[in-house]
């Protein structure tokens, strides 16, 4: 090739054809971003605009009363918190324990691969199927009826894969040198895991937890059959065996069965806020851990 075939470094602009192509591509991408942002904002604004006129302290803090003809979503908020909390308390030890077993104890790599494959598959199953199985197994076979407990257990099964996966991923990032170092000093395996490995993984586990909580908050299909539709207020103890609608289920019931769209939008707005809060928590926690590590 001769020297003058090389592109000159002085030449500032691209040849016309390439410049046109590049501009067209850029405009396309801008358009895509524009549409995405517009959709998200439209959705949020639409929900807020429809919800705000009906927002009142009363709707947030009372239960619905047919006698007085008033509507309140307090039971649904409490049910949601109760359900998510119970499910997390059960799923955390199960999922983290399973991940620790797979990563730190299991000797047969074949078995680990099979279980990991099963977990992957479980993670992709539509949640209505968990609802169906939960209804047949927890509500009927274990005779828990439609209750918050049955709903929680269904959520537990549903979110085990998330917890196992995120925990395993963070276990895998712990350098093997740490394990060898602890073993070399005479640690038993569980002591080593508790004192060296798990402290390195706390962020991963907490992040997994927040993710799982977010998914539970938004879940409705798995709860329709298992936790039920009741809007009653219960005590802390008897609540577990009673039927109760979460916010998402209540939203469905109000909008679809009762045509009360105002309430549905209020609930949607509450869910939006909860969503923001979980996302914010996840990010704030990530930033906090980064700071500590430095």
């Amino acid at each position: 090739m001769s020297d003058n075939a090389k592109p000159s470094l002085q030449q500032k602009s691209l040849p016309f054809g390439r410049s046109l192509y590049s501009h067209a591509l850029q405009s396309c991408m801008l358009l895509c971003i524009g549409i995405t942002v517009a959709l998200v904002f439209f959705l949020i604004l639409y929900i807020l605009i429809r919800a705000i006129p009906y927002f009142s302290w009363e709707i947030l803090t009372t239960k619905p009363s047919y006698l007085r003809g008033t509507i309140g979503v307090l039971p649904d908020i409490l049910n949601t918190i109760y359900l998510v909390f119970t499910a997390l308390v059960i799923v955390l030890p199960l999922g983290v324990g399973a991940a620790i077993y797979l990563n730190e104890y299991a000797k047969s790599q074949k078995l680990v691969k099979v279980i990991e494959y099963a977990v992957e598959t479980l993670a992709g199953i539509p949640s209505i199927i968990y609802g169906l199985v939960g209804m047949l197994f927890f509500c009927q076979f274990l005779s828990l009826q439609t209750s918050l407990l049955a709903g929680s257990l269904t959520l537990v099964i549903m979110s085990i894969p998330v917890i196992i996966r995120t925990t395993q991923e963070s276990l895998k990032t712990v350098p093997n040198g740490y394990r060898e170092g602890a073993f070399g000093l005479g640690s038993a395996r569980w002591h080593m895991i508790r004192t060296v490995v798990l402290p390195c993984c706390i962020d991963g586990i907490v992040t997994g937890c927040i993710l799982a909580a977010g998914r539970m908050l938004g879940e409705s299909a798995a709860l329709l059959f298992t936790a039920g539709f009741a809007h009653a207020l219960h005590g802390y103890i008897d609540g577990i065996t009673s039927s109760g609608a979460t916010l998402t289920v209540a939203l469905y019931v109000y909008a679809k069965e009762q045509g009360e769209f105002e309430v549905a939008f209020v609930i949607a707005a509450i869910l939006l806020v909860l969503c923001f809060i979980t996302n914010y928590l996840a990010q704030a926690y990530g930033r906090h851990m980064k700071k500590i590590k430095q």
Partner: protein
Amino acid sequence: METIFDVENFNLWYGDNHALHNINMKIEKNAITALIGPSGCGKSTFIKTLNRMNDLIPSVKLSGSIRYRGQEIVNSDINVYNLRKEVGMVFQKPNPFPMSVYDNIAYGPRTHGIKNKSQLNDIVEKSLRDAAIFDELKDRLKDSALGLSGGQQQRLCIARALAVKPDVLLMDEPTSALDPISTSKIEELVLDLKKEYSIVIVTHNMQQAVRISDYTAFFLLGDLVEFDKTDKIFSKPSDKRTEDYITGRFG
């Protein structure tokens, strides 16, 4: 001379791979024994059997006998946690835990049940002094060990191993990841530690073996080719293969 490890007809397999063949050697107490040989000849494998770290690899099978202070450690149900407490290990890549300098040193003693704060303080100070790093680190006890330089990290790891009051220190190429100055500091330290500890050190570096060791074992493809006083190995090796290796004809 007093023997600390007595190895007889020792064999090791990784699955079907026969990695160590019929090893016989007596490792002397309060001496430095260097293990040399080309990569993959089984030095690390051998050193890890001395504190049963090979137990962690499921495919490993052993035969023959290794007696530590007269107790059989091959295929016997001794308490491996106590064995590893007495036979400490320093690894090729410095591996301080992601904790403070203090907590790194206190890790071993705490693992073995020491909780008393002032006792731990004493152990931490003594271990750091013994590892000749106290002056450098005395103001940084609360800092993360991960912020130290590579050489400091390795000496911290030696201090951490000393904190459980071992008898023997196994060191697997402890200076191969370090710069020359850190290396010579560690060599001095190892020479100094010989008074109180028996040391087995794997090294890739012939000069290092000459500088610090009393005995040298030359491994080749899973065989222990020659084991003798270091002077003898490097001046009048009795095996042709040893001579070829130390004169740099292969490896």
